[in-house]
């Protein structure tokens, strides 16, 4: 059990002249959750599919449960669970038939009926796959990934197309997997998801790792850059507030009615903000002191522009 669940180093893969993955490296420790975070087209799915043995790498080394997925696929697959992006099932297959088929491929499967029940699919067991909603298809795909009691689970954008309740459920599931010693490698472009689930986050962009660490390590990198956020009436004159604040603090209104104070946020700063609000005769709502969110880190690293 000493080998890590996944060990990737210097991974390279190109499609024609396009470099999809360019020197990515990370390690998923046993029983931990690692999130590959990145914008669309960053190389997340390519990386995960190389680990699953679906794609061949052009360079670098990959060890999954101590095996090379490119050559030991048949030995590896019984030990892993895979949730591919966008699911995958016969259009006409009924939910219970599909899960029964995948369960038959495992030595000690979970009870399909129980799994469908906890995933909220108990009412849809006889529904053909093509008539499921996107979120239901995702949940069936997740069930297929978990049914065989794998040691390691690959989840490629597990909550894409899910409503908030279903997403919450998936988060609980991932936490339960981790608690039971299952290793998880997932991809997401939801910061909140990475922050909530992952022991380690690897931010990738243009096929390269731009940052990695625990969510805490990543968000603490700018420790002196704390912030205080609050909501109030839009268009308030903040000049007076700025004079009341300690040196080095900045005040801005990035969105109408959303105010942001950055700098070293101490009790004095909080007090200055609240008394200024009192002077202005407004109530500061949702007043919040915080570190940078993972989203801030992510946007700082990958840019705020929309990719074409």
């Amino acid at each position, binding site marked *: 059990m000493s080998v890590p669940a996944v060990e990737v180093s210097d991974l390279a893969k190109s499609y024609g002249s396009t470099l999809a993955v360019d020197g990515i490296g990370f390690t998923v420790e046993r029983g931990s959750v690692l999130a590959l975070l990145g914008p669309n087209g960053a190389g997340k799915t390519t990386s995960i599919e190389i680990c699953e043995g679906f794609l061949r790498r052009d360079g670098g080394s990959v060890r999954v449960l101590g095996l090379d997925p490119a050559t030991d696929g048949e030995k590896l697959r019984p030990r892993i669970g895979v949730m591919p992006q*966008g699911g995958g099932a016969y259009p*006409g297959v009924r939910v219970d038939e599909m899960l029964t088929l995948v369960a038959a491929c495992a030595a*000690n499967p*979970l009870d399909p009926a129980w799994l469908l029940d906890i995933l909220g699919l108990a009412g849809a067991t006889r529904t053909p796959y093509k008539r499921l909603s996107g979120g239901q298809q995702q949940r069936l795909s997740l069930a297929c990934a978990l049914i065989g009691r794998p040691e390691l689970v690959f989840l490629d954008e597990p909550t894409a197309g899910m409503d908030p309740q279903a997403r919450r459920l998936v988060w609980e599931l991932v936490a*339960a997997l981790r608690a039971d010693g299952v290793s998880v490698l997932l991809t997401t472009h939801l910061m909140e998801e990475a922050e909530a689930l992952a022991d380690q986050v690897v931010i990738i962009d243009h096929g390269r790792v731009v940052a990695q660490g625990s969510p805490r390590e990543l968000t603490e990198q700018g420790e002196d850059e704390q912030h205080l956020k609050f909501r109030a009436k839009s268009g308030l004159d903040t000049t007076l507030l700025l004079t009341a604040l300690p040196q080095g603090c900045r005040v801005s209104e990035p969105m109408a009615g959303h105010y942001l104070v950055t700098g070293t946020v101490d009790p004095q700063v909080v007090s200055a903000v609240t008394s200024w609000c009192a002077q202005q005769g407004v109530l500061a709502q949702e007043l919040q002191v915080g570190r940078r969110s993972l989203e801030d880190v992510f946007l700082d690293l990958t840019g705020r522009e929309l990719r074409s």
Partner: protein
Amino acid sequence: MTARFEAGTFTPAPGAGKPLRMLLTHARTEAMLTLRNGEQVLLTVLIPLALLVGLSVLKIIDMPEPRVDSVTPRIFALAVMSSAFTGQAIALGFDRRYGVLKRLAATALPRWLLVAGRVLAALGVVVLQLVLLALTAALLGWSPSPSGLVWTVLLVVLGTVAFGALGVLLGGALKAEVVLALANIVWFVLLLAGGIIVAADSLPEGMATVVRLLPSAALTEGLTTALVDGRVPDWSVFAILAGWGGGAALLATRTTKLV
């Protein structure tokens, strides 16, 4: 937060299922999906049935009497080709499109089982087709030669495997829409000019030589020899079917893509 799941629920216990169970579950699922698909039933059951009745009753094409005896082996060959080749190719093309192959390839199902399950499913469907066609033929007065039945079974199995391999070759390599078009065109051409409806012997000499080498003609000729004449089919029939099947299978292992 994890209160919903008792500790130990997901404790790893990985491993592959028993091969026979995997094979049978896979084959059963595939067969059920085929029988539930309206277009597939049209192709595999209704068209052969209509041709069996039509060609037996109506004297459109010259055939030795009793007509039903001459028609039935040809319709058997058509049924095998419809299921194992056209049906399999189209199903595989779209299964790839919908990520089914990738889904299954991500399980413990070994690659050989992925193919074996489909072939077994096709065989199951072919048996159902032939039983239905044989019963209909019997109602029309069909009197097969009992001594040819063993050879019929062997030819049907070999034909299903050969056409199945060709179906996998086509369905596993091209885009779903292209597969759909090609599989239907090939089906139509082989039906009319591939030695099924019109026997290779009644074609012009040059064309007949080529047509005799086709799997459709070989299967039709073999089944006719067995069921009408009650004789052992010529060895070349088996060689042609095995050649097409083996060649296609070999090529398919190189060209078949999961997506």
